[in-house]
């Protein structure tokens, strides 16, 4: 059996890993440089070079070591931090504050994020209107580009978007890695259905009130991006809600449980993305012939996507975000990235290579802008 496990190892030789990295190297170079590098901007060139090299080293290491999650997490967490930094920097430059006023709402100057999408669907279908005070095209973080990006990523990656594309997920992913062992070990699987209840509530309340209710009252990430100016008891209550949900679900609970609790118990977009897992070609599979049901994958899964029953039946649930944590943790390599239509246990390397290429390319292209901005700001302090 040991030989079987060795044969199924996902790591590659140095040369082969370099060869696999070459296409990513070329494509990310084209995207990141944009074909118009300003050589007189020294801090800009340094930021681009560091981003480009850093990303490709991470991708190379995924192939060379055969591990996925820890290298993905580095980029994912940096993406979350840099995006918040970029957004706040932009807001401060435009408004001199992290908060927005009623005038900004009236003038449709609020940056759009993908969490609004679940609330837009019903009003857009029935009233042909977009219930968000942002710009449709052009400007910073416009609605159309974000919707298209999310749609493409969700169709291709399914809930993989939550671990390879969401610029908020890195926050609770990061905090969930703070402790080596969880303090709270047993959490009922009952709560993983909460995002669907939140989705039901926010979609209905948004459709009836024609306002993005999740953004107005619940979104924890308002605490690290932008929020309504506190001018009344109501706006103070909203700010309190954002901060307490961020503190509870994004910082404290992930640290205590080693799980991504905000993504698991609150995010309504995560619920939609879970459903999209049904159509994506990429899935995580369990090879029942190799699996000895040690349940290490169940312990490490940050999104409660695996239960002992799932392992027994050999099916990974729709909650899976394809982060790769279970794949890395499995001592027998029984759980692996797969493609629909191909039986579990076969073409493991081929499936992983394709999935890694697509998902890494997405996060690399999506995150490069904000990472470069952050690095440039840091270098500007010294150069």
């Amino acid at each position, binding site marked *: 059996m040991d030989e079987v496990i060795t044969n199924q190892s996902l790591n590659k030789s140095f040369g082969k890993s370099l060869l696999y990295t070459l296409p990513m190297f070329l494509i990310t170079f084209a995207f990141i440089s944009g074909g118009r590098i300003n050589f007189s901007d020294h801090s800009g060139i340094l930021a681009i070079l560091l981003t480009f090299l850093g990303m490709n080293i991470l991708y190379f290491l995924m192939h060379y070591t055969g591990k996925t999650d820890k290298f993905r997490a580095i980029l994912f967490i940096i993406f979350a931090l840099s995006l918040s930094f970029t957004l706040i920097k932009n807001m401060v430059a435009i408004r001199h504050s992290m908060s927005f006023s009623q005038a900004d709402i009236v003038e449709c100057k609020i940056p759009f994020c993908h969490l609004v999408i679940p609330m837009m669907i019903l009003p857009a279908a029935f009233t042909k209107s977009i219930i968000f005070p942002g710009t449709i095209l052009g400007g910073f973080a416009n609605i159309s580009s974000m919707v298209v990006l999310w749609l493409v990523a969700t169709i291709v990656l399914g809930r993989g978007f939550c671990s390879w594309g969401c610029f908020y997920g890195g926050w609770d992913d990061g905090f969930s890695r703070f402790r080596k062992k969880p303090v709270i070990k047993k959490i009922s699987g009952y709560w993983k*259905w909460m995002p669907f*209840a939140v989705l*039901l*509530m926010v979609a209905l309340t948004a459709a009836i009130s024609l306002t993005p209710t999740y953004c107005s009252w619940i979104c924890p990430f308002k605490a690290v991006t932008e929020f309504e100016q506190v001018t009344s008891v109501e706006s103070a209550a909203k700010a309190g809600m954002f901060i307490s949900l961020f503190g509870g679900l994004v910082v404290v609970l992930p640290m205590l449980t080693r799980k991504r609790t905000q993504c698991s118990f609150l995010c309504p977009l995560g619920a939609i993305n879970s459903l999209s897992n049904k159509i994506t070609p990429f899935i995580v599979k369990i090879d029942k012939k190799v699996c000895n049901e040690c349940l290490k994958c169940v312990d490490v899964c940050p999104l409660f996507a695996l239960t002992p029953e799932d392992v027994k039946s050999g099916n990974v649930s729709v909650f899976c975000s394809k982060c790769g944590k279970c794949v890395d943790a499995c001592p027998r390599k029984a759980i692996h990235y797969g493609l629909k239509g191909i039986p579990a246990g076969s073409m493991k390397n081929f499936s992983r290579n394709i999935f890694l290429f697509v998902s890494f390319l997405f996060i690399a292209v999506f995150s490069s802008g904000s990472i470069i901005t952050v690095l440039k700001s840091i270098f500007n302090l010294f150069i």
Partner: protein
Amino acid sequence: MLDTFILGLSSGSTCLLTCGMVIFPYLMAGSAGTRKIITDLSFFLLTRLVVYFLLATLAWYFGKAILTSAIFRNYVSGILYILFAVMLVWYSISRNRKPDCPAKIVTTVNNKKLVPVLLGVVNSLGFCPALFLILTNSATQGTLARSYLAFLGFFAGSSLYFLPLPLAGRIRKKKVFETVGILATGLAGIIFIIKGITNLIGGIING
């Protein structure tokens, strides 16, 4: 009306999956086809509407008689909202929940023509925290028309789930729908807790 509609929508799915499973076989029993089911369902829903309007009238009358001052109304509604909403949240997180439907009582009635009407009466009088919240909401409305609208919102929200009742037996993942419905009910409870706190603060500031 908006908040009561939301409450109806959130608690309606749970109502369908607990009571629907009791109601459905009785609506189907001895039926000749879809027309009979639709007729029975119409009687069932109409009865619910009539009972809700009666409750709205009673709630408005008692509200008008007892809650005479606006400040007192804010205090009482605030406290009752918080109380019943906490019950609703507790219901959604409690593990000892009993998914029994009060409409089971009707199983003893032999007259099949009366069954949909009696089911409607018993279903609407199933005194759950959600109904207590609506009664509080209705009692604190200024006019009878607004009281009716509050119940109408609840009726519309909760009735939506009964419309495809003939298909209820074919739902494959009943447990999932039930869980999501119960959790959504808990979230609706949180909305009413916030509403209750707002009413209390309003009462304190105005008092």
